[in-house]
Every structure is written in C-alpha cells, then in structure tokens.
C-alpha cells in the first residue's frame, strides 16, 4: 500500500478524499474503505499540526472513516424497509454533493472570465440634472400652520428673550452667567448635521468651548443616539468621538427638557 500522497494543501477532508478516490481510480459509489482510510490517515499524520482548527477538521473525517471501516466488518444493518444499509452511503452522498459544487465552481469561473470582458461606465449625471430640486409645495409645507399659531410662536420667542435678560446682573455687563439650554445646543447641532454627514465631537464644539456647553452638547448627542439620528464611534478611550448622521436631521424634533 502507501500511495505517497504529496503534501499538497487540500481545502478540507472532502477535497482530500475526492483526490484519493481519483488517484486510486476507484469508484465513488464503491469506495474501498480500507485502502482509502489508510491513505487518508497517512496524509493526516504528515500534516502540519500547528493549525489545530484545520487538523481537527481532518481528524473528524478520520474518525468517520474508521467508524465506517469497522461497520463494514460487522453484519449489514437493515433499515425499516428491511433493506441492507451500506455504511458508506452517507459519505458517498456528501462526496457527490461536494463534487457537484466543485464542478459548478469551475463553471462559474469560466463565466466570470467571459463576464470580465464587458466594461461598464461610471455614472455621469449632468450637473443640471443633479442640481434639480423638486418645487416646494407650499400648501403641503405650511400644512395646518396658521397665522395665529405663527403669532404665538413669535410671542414665545419674545418672552424667552425677556426672560434671558436678567435685569440686575445684565447691568454689570461683565459678569456672565452662562446659560446653555439643550434646545439651543440642539439647534446648533442640528444645523451642523444638515451640513456634515460625518464629523467629530470636537468639531461640534467649535463655536463654544465652555464646560457647560460641552456637557450640554454631549447630552444632545446622547439624545440623538437614542432617537437614532446619529451613531458614534470612538477608537479608544479619550480619543475624539466620531459622529455619523443616520437619518434626515430635518426631522429632529425639539428636545423636551424635562
């Protein structure tokens, strides 16, 4: 015995088995299990054992082969219909299926070579087409907004402004109590989101570096993560946080600050 199997790389145990069957010129439906098992083991023994994952895959098949070998020696098992079962049947089925796919992969390879002979073209959308914006449907845009609603919005704005002016302290001029509201930061973040798809947290703070602003901005970002408008990534601790826009920022609603 001992057809010397060169130590070539096989994709796996099935690949090796097909190779042995081919090399011995035996029939796949009637594998001489003793011979094949012997040659299979010979190959496995010579294998580089450093990659345990690979080795274990080959060993599982080795166990299967030995199992089949021993069952071949026993009286034939009989199935429910009273027919004798060949211990090799399952393995044969697997080998045939594998062989078919190997064959199909070669067929695909040919097709790929043919397909590569066709060349494609990059998209060349004329700027005029690219710049096209559908007309604004004002009726839809304005919706159920009315003049009186607009009026109350205006009054809210004015009121907010009044409240912001602390009548006493504003006189001293120099002392500033910093007020950074979530809403205000949100407005800033939102407009930033509209113009950038991806940016760092530091970039967000360009306009206001104060501690309060940083904290409030961070809270706003957390809120946006929660509502799914952005995702964040940080390469390692203390490195800058990268923010990526996920949904249309125009849809961001004001944050309820309670």
């Amino acid at each position, binding site marked *: 015995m001992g057809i010397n199997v060169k130590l070539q790389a096989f994709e796996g145990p099935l690949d090796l088995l097909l190779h042995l069957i081919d090399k011995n010129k035996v029939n796949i439906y009637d594998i001489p299990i003793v011979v094949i098992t012997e040659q299979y083991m010979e190959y496995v023994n010579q294998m580089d054992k450093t990659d345990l994952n690979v080795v274990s895959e080959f060993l599982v098949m080795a166990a299967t082969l030995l199992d089949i070998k021993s069952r071949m020696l026993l009286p034939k098992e009989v199935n429910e219909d009273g027919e004798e079962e060949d211990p090799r049947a399952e393995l044969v089925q697997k080998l045939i299926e594998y062989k078919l796919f190997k064959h199909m992969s070669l067929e695909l390879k040919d097709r790929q070579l043919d397909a590569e002979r066709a060349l494609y073209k990059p998209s060349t959308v004329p700027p005029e087409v690219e710049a096209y914006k559908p007309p*604004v449907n004002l009726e839809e845009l304005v919706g159920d907004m009315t003049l009186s609603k607009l009026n109350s919005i205006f009054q809210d704005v004015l009121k907010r402004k009044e409240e912001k002016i602390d*009548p006493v302290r504003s006189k001293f001029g120099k002392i500033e109590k910093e007020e950074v509201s979530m809403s205000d930061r949100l407005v800033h973040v939102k407009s930033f989101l509209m113009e950038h798809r991806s940016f760092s947290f530091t970039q967000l703070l360009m306009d206001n570096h104060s501690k309060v602003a940083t904290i409030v901005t961070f809270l706003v970002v957390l809120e946006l993560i929660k509502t799914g408008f952005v995702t964040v990534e940080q390469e390692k601790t203390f490195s800058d946080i990268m923010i990526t826009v996920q949904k249309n920022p125009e849809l961001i609603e004001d944050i309820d600050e309670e």
Partner: protein
Amino acid sequence: MDIERIEAIIEAVLFTMGESVEADKLAAAIDHDVDTTLKIVHNMMDKYESEDRGIKIIELENAFQMCTKPEFYDNLIKVASQPRKYVLTDVLLEALSIIAYKQPITKMEIEKIRGVSSDFAVNKLVEYGLVKEVGRLDAPGRPMLFGTTENFLRSFGVQSIDDLPVISEDMVEQYKEEAEYELAADSVAAKLDESDEDDNQLTLNI
C-alpha cells in the same frame, strides 16, 4: 476591419470612458491613423445627432465625449433626482415668525432675538420661497434685509403684511410691568428701566 465594426469600437470606447477621449487614443483602439479616425468620428457624430438616439458625441479640443442629449434631462430627472422632504421645523417657524412680525429685518437682528445663529433657518426659508431679500440696511457691511413673500401671504391666507395680527400693546405693557414690578423700589432698577428703553423700543417698534 469593416466600418461598422470600427464604429462599434468607437462607441464602446467612448461609452466606457465616460469622460473625453483624445483622438489619438481612439485611433489606437481601432488601429487607424488619427485623420481617418477623425473622419469616422465626425460621421458618427452626425449620425447620432440625426437619429433617434438618447446620446450624442461632442468634440472638445481634439477629444471626444459621449453624453446625454439635453432634451432628455426632464426624463432623467425622474430617475436621478433625490426625493426631498420639505418640513417647517420649529426652528424655521421661529425665524419665520420673527421675520413676519419685524420685517424688514437683518439676520443679525433675528439672531439677537433668538439668541442663536439663524443663517440656516433664513436660507431655508428663502429656498422655500416664504422669505426673500427685500433690500439692504444702510449700515456698515450693508446687511441684507429680509421680508416675507407674496407666497407667504397666500399660504397663510393674509391679504398684506398689514393684516398680520398685531402683537397687542397689552402684552408689551405686561412685559414692562413685570420688569417694573420686580425692580420697583430699587433705584438701580429705575435706571435699568430707563436704559432698557432701547430694548423696549425694539419690541414696541413692531
């Protein structure tokens, strides 16, 4: 090589390159000299132009490019343009209300009232056609003045800006009273009140 095949190759080259291709490159592809190539391509250009084709060949400084016939841009837009959603967000509504009630107004003033940059909001409102530039302020930098458009009036069912509901004097009074109340006995407060006149003026000028 027959002429049909040559033309087919030129078509294929111009197609796949997308951008312009120099005449000598085309010549190389079809294995002919540049003069012959030019003749062939010029002939092809006429053919593309006169036939019912969606594409044509244009010449640019001894180079050629295949491009879409402009007459089909409208059809192309149906495929290539991005669907956009226009929404009047709270931010936009705020800016719009300020412009509506205080027009003509500069971006700077809007910012002062809202306390935040309003560039984006104003630009969007202009894009939507609700707001437009109505002039320039006679001040350093000659900043733009914004006001509402006729479309705005139509959309909100207003005849003219004079019809905008007034911010009642009562309300302004109320703000003032609150302030006065808090600072009543205080002389500092009294001064404040005076010096705040400007601010009130601003609100009263509506």
